[in-house]
C-alpha cells in the first residue's frame, strides 16, 4: 500500500484439478477483486470438468471412450490442450507423452474405467488432431495430467488480467503463474525434506512448475514415468521450470525430468529455464537454451 493508492488484496483457495488451487489478486475494491477471483475459479472449474481423467463423464473421458472408433468433436479448451500436448510430444520426440495413462492405471495412480479400452498402450503418434476434432488410430488413453493444470493456471490468470487486477497469482498445487506488482520469492520444497523449502527465484511476470517425487515416497511407484522406457522419474530429483506460460512450464518439467541433456534446445525455444535439485549431489543444475551449468550448493540434506 503506498500513499493515496488504495488497493485490496484477496487470497482464496478451492479444491480443483486434484489439488488445491490458490488465487490471490490485488485490485481497486473488495467487491471487484472477489468478483474477479470468482470468475477465475469458474474458469478453472470448467477446465477441470472438461479434462478430468477421473470423472467418467468428462469430455476427455468421452474422447477416450470413442475416439478409436470415430472422430470426436472437441470444445475449444480441449482442442487447444490437445494441440499443445501434441506439439510438446513432437518437439520432445515423445519425452512429453500425454498417452502414458495405461501405465498409471496399472499402478493405481489413475482410475480404471470399465467402459474404456483395456487394450490401450502408450503412443501419442496415434492421435490424429484435425482442428476441433480428434480420433485415435488405435485404442489410447489420453490424460492431460502433465499439462492441464498449467493451462488452467494461464486461463485463470488471463481472467484476472482482463478484470483489471493490478497484480495476481494463481497456484495450482505448485504450478504457479503471476503478473504485476513487485517480484515475489518463489520457493520449492526440498526434495528429500518436503517440509523445508528453498528460495528458488524471484518472479514478477511468468510461471513456474515443479515436478518431484516427494510425498510419493510411501507409494509403490512414482507417477512420473519415462515415456520411452516406462522407468520411474523424480524419485528424489526436483525439477522446476520457469517459463513465460504455466502450460509450457508444466509440460517442460516432464521433458527435463526425462532427459535434462536433450531439453536444452526446447527450453531455449520457449524462453524457459530449468533448475534441478538432486539431494544426493552437492550441486544445483541450471539448464536453458545456453546449455547446462552446475552451481555449487552447500545446503544439502
Amino acid at each position, binding site marked *: 500500500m503506498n500513499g493515496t493508492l488504495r488497493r485490496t488484496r484477496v487470497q482464496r483457495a478451492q479444491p480443483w484439478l486434484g489439488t488445491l488451487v490458490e488465487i490471490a489478486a490485488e485490485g481497486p475494491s473488495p467487491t471487484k477483486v472477489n468478483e474477479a477471483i470468482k470468475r477465475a475459479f469458474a474458469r478453472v472449474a470448467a477446465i477441470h470438468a472438461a479434462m478430468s481423467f477421473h470423472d467418467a463423464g468428462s469430455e476427455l473421458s468421452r474422447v477416450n471412450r470413442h475416439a478409436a472408433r470415430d472422430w470426436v468433436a472437441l470444445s475449444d479448451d480441449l482442442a487447444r490442450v490437445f494441440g499443445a500436448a501434441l506439439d510438446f510430444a513432437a518437439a520432445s520426440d515423445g519425452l512429453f507423452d500425454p498417452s502414458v495413462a495405461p501405465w498409471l492405471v496399472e499402478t493405481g495412480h489413475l482410475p480404471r474405467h470399465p467402459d474404456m479400452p483395456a487394450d490401450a498402450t502408450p503412443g501419442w503418434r496415434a492421435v490424429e488432431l484435425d482442428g476441433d476434432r480428434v480420433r485415435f488410430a488405435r485404442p489410447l488413453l489420453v490424460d492431460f495430467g502433465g499439462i492441464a493444470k498449467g493451462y488452467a493456471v494461464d486461463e485463470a490468470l488471463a481472467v484476472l488480467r482482463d478484470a483489471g487486477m493490478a497484480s495476481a497469482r494463481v497456484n495450482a498445487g505448485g504450478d504457479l503463474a503471476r503478473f504485476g506488482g513487485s517480484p515475489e520469492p518463489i520457493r520449492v520444497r526440498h526434495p528429500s525434506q518436503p*517440509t523445508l523449502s528453498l528460495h528458488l527465484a524471484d518472479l514478477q511476470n511468468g510461471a513456474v512448475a515443479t515436478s518431484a517425487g516427494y510425498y510419493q515416497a510411501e507409494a509403490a511407484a512414482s507417477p512420473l514415468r519415462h515415456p520411452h522406457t516406462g522407468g520411474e522419474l523424480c524419485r528424489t530429483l526436483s525439477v522446476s521450470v520457469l517459463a513465460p506460460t504455466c502450460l509450457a512450464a508444466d509440460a517442460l518439467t516432464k521433458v527435463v525430468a526425462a532427459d535434462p541433456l536433450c531439453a536444452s534446445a526446447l527450453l531455449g525455444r520457449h524462453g524457459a529455464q530449468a533448475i534441478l535439485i538432486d539431494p544426493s549431489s552437492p550441486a544445483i543444475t541450471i539448464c536453458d537454451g545456453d546449455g547446462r551449468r552446475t552451481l555449487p550448493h552447500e545446503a544439502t540434506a
Partner: protein
Amino acid sequence: MSHSPAWLIVPALIAPAVAVSPAYAVQYMTAEGAQKQMFPEASRFVDHPVRLTDAQRDLVEKAANVRMRYPEQPVWQALANGKPVGWFVLDEVYGKHEFITYAVALDVTGAVRSVEIIDYRETHGGEIGNAKWRAQFVGKHHGDALKLGDDIQNISGATLSCKHISEGVRRVVAIHEVALK
C-alpha cells in the same frame, strides 16, 4: 502495461544459508467471510449444529465410506428474506502432512454449491497427535481464527492431494442426507 516474463534465479540458492521455511500455513478467510462469499444472497445464518445418533453416524460412514471423527458437525442454515437457501457446513480434514479447515455450501436439495478453503497448514507429521498443537485450532469455528503470516506462500511443487477434502465433502453430503433433509 507489458507483462513480459521476468524472473531472477536467486544467488542465495547457492549460498550456505539457504532460506528454509519450517512449514506452510495460510488463512484464507474466516468462517463468517466464507458464509458471505458462498451465500451472497443470504441475509441471515442460523446456527444449526448436527449431532448424529449412533445409527445416523453408521449411515453416514457407510454412504460416504469415510470415518466420522467428531460427533458434532458445525452447520448453519442460510436464509434470504426468511426463506432457506441452503446449508453452510464447516469441516476439517487432516492427512499425514496437512491440516485443512474448509466450508461446504449446499443448496436446499443438498447438492454442493461450492467448497472454500478457510485455512490450510502443513505439518511435520506427529504434531497432529499433540494436544497442545491441536489446541491452537479451538475456537476457530467461531470466527476468531488465528492470524497467520502470509510471507511464505509462493511454493512451487506444493502438490498435496486433495483426496481428504474430496472424502470430507462426501461425508458432508451424506450428513445432509441423513440429518438435514
